[in-house]
C-alpha cells in the first residue's frame, strides 16, 4: 500500500517493515457524515486518516454531543483500544468524504514487537491528546466562547483545511463547533455570524471558508489579550 511511509507513526520503520505493514493494512473510504465507529464498540483496529477529516466525539445519555477533537490527514485514532483492550471511549465520524487505513490490533501488536519505535509514536499521539485536553479544560474554565471557537477553527484549519480560490475551506458546521467548545449551537452560530460580519470568514452549508488564515490567527490573539 502506497503512502504508509509518509504517516508519522511509521516514518522511522524500515522499507521492509512498511511493505509488510502495507500487506496487512486495509484502505477504507467513507462518505460525509458517516460514523466510522461508535462509543462502546469493540476496539479492534487502529485508524490512520489518509485524506478528509473526522471528528472524535462523545455522546451523553441525553444525546448531547461533545466534540473532543477534529483530525486530518496523517493523524491516528482508535489507539486507546490497542493499549487497554476496552471498548471505544468515543465515536468517530467523518466531516467530509474520508479515506482511512485500518490496521487490526493483532497485526499492530506483532509490529510493535518487532519495531518498538511504533509504540513510541503512538504514545506521542496520546501525549498530544492529553495536552490538548488539558488546554481545553483550562479554556473551559477561563476563556469565553468566541475565543474557544476561534481556537478550534484555527486548529481545524491547520489539520484539514483545503486551499480553494476563495480561501481555506474547513469542513465544520456550527453544531460540531458548539459540541467542541461546549456551548449551544445558537451561540456558536452567533459568533460565526459576527466573524462573518467582520470579514474574517464565510459560513456556508456544512463548512467555513477562511479567506485569510493569518488574520483569523490575529483575531485569536486579540481575543486573548
Amino acid at each position, binding site marked *: 500500500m502506497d503512502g504508509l511511509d509518509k504517516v508519522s507513526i511509521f516514518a522511522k520503520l524500515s522499507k521492509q517493515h512498511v511493505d509488510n505493514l502495507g500487506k496487512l493494512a486495509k484502505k477504507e473510504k467513507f462518505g460525509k457524515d458517516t*460514523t466510522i465507529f461508535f462509543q462502546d464498540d469493540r476496539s479492534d483496529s487502529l485508524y490512520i486518516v489518509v485524506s478528509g477529516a473526522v471528528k472524535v466525539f462523545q455522546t451523553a445519555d441525553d*444525546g448531547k454531543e461533545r466534540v473532543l477533537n477534529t483530525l486530518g490527514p496523517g493523524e491516528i485514532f482508535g489507539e486507546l483500544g490497542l493499549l487497554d483492550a476496552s471498548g471505544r471511549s468515543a465515536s468517530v465520524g467523518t466531516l467530509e468524504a474520508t479515506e482511512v487505513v485500518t490496521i487490526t490490533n493483532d497485526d499492530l501488536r506483532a509490529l510493535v514487537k518487532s519495531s518498538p519505535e511504533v509504540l513510541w509514536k503512538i504514545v506521542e499521539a496520546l501525549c498530544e491528546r492529553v495536552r490538548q485536553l488539558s488546554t481545553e479544560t483550562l479554556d473551559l474554565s477561563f476563556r469565553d466562547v468566541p475565543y474557544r471557537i476561534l481556537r478550534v477553527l484555527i486548529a481545524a484549519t491547520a489539520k484539514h483545511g483545503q486551499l480553494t480560490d476563495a480561501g481555506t475551506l474547513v469542513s465544520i458546521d456550527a453544531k460540531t463547533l458548539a459540541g467542541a467548545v461546549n456551548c449551544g449551537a445558537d451561540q456558536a452560530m452567533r459568533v460565526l455570524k459576527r466573524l462573518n460580519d467582520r470579514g474574517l470568514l464565510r459560513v456556508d452549508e456544512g463548512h467555513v471558508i477562511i479567506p485569510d488564515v493569518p488574520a483569523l490567527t490575529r483575531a485569536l490573539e486579540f481575543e486573548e489579550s
Partner: protein
Amino acid sequence: MQQDILNGVRAAWKDRAASRFTAPLTFVLAMLGGGVAVAHERFVKHNLRFPLKYEFFGRWPGKPLGLHPDHLMIGIRVVAILGAFFAIWFIRRSLTEFVERTFLRKVGGVVQSWGHQFACFLTDRPVRQKVYHSLGEWAVILFLRSPGLVLMFSATNDSLVMPSYPLDPASASIFKFAQVGLAILILTQTWLPLCGAMIVGTWLYLFRWGWMVAIDAVPVLTVAVVYCTSPWQSHKLPITKINASQMRLLRIVLGFGFLALGWLKVYNHNLVAGVADNAPSVLNDPMVAMLMGTNDPNYLWRREAWVIAFGLAEVMSGFMVMIGVFTRLWATIMAFMFTKLMLVDFGWDEIPHIYPIAAMLVVIFSNQLTSEVDPIEKLDLEAWRAGKPIKRFLIVGTTALVGSVLVIIPLLYLISFIDRTAM
C-alpha cells in the same frame, strides 16, 4: 411479646449504623404480626366453566420423562427458544458488528445513527438519544408513584391492592386508611425506605393466606427494593434516575417475580384455565400458540396445553429479565402483554397493571442494564479475541443448553408428580 417488639424497634432506631430500613421493617412486622389487623382478603378463584382433563398434567408411564408428549413438547419448545436466545446473546456483538459494518456504514447519516441506536436497544447497550432519555426519566417518575395510584384505586374499591383481594367489611376501613396513608407517602415521595419496608411487611403478611397468594404478589417487591435503597430525604430530591445497583436489584426481583408467577400458573392450572374460561380472548395469543404448537380450536388438549404454554411463556420472559439476557426485548414483550390484558382482555378491573407496566418501562428505557451472564460472556470474548472458535462454540453451546434445560425441565417433571385436581 409486644414489649420485646417495641424494645427491638427502639434498639433499631438507636443504632444509626443499622441498615436504613431495619427500624421501619420491624415496626411494620410488629403491626402486622401483633394481631392489629384482623381483616382478611380472599384470593378469588376464577371458576372453571368446564372441567379440565387432569390426566394431561399427571404421569404418563412409558412416555419420555413420564409426561404427556404434548406437555413435554411445550417444555422442549421453550427450552429451544431459551437456548436460541442465550446463543444469540453471546454472539450479539459479532452480529451487530457485522450488520453495522456491512450495511449501515455504507448508508451513513441519520439512517446509520438510528440503525445503531436500534441495535443498541435490542442488545441492551446504552441508547444515547434525547427522547429516549426523557422517556426513561418519565418512566422512573411513573414507576415510583404508580403504587400510590394503585393503592388509592384499591382503597376506593374496598380491596387490597388488586380487585382480586377484596377486604372484609368488618375491618375494611382500617386497611383503606392504611393504604391511603402509604399512598400519600409514596405520591409525595416521603420516607421512601419506610414505604419500601411497609410494602415488604405487607407482602410477608400475605403468607397468612398461603404461599400462593404471596407468590402472586412477588412483583410488588420490585418497587420495594427501589424504595428501600432510596435516601430518607427522598422528599427533597427530584428522583428521575435509578442507579446501576438499584436497576440490577429491580431487574432480578421483577424477573424472579414473573418466573415464580409463571410456575404458579403451571402449578395452579384450575385458576389459569378459569381465567381463560372467563376471558376466552386470551386463548388466542400468538406467542402462546407458538409454544403450544397449534391454534386449532378442535385440538383435544387445547385448554390444558394452553395453561402450560401460558405459564411457561411467563417463566421464559421472567427468567430472561432476571438474568439480563435481552432484557429490553423481553420487557417490551411483557409490557405489551400487560397492556393488552388491561385494555383488551380483562378491562378496567386490571387497571392496577399500570404498576408492572411502569416497572417494565423503567427497564426498557434504562441505560444501566447489566447481565448475570457477564462472566461467561467475558470467557467467550477472550476465546473470540484469541481466535479459538471451538472453545467459543463450547462455551456458548454448553451455557445455552444447560441453562435453558435446567430452568424448565426439572420443575416441569417434578410438578407432574403432584396431584392438583382438588385445588
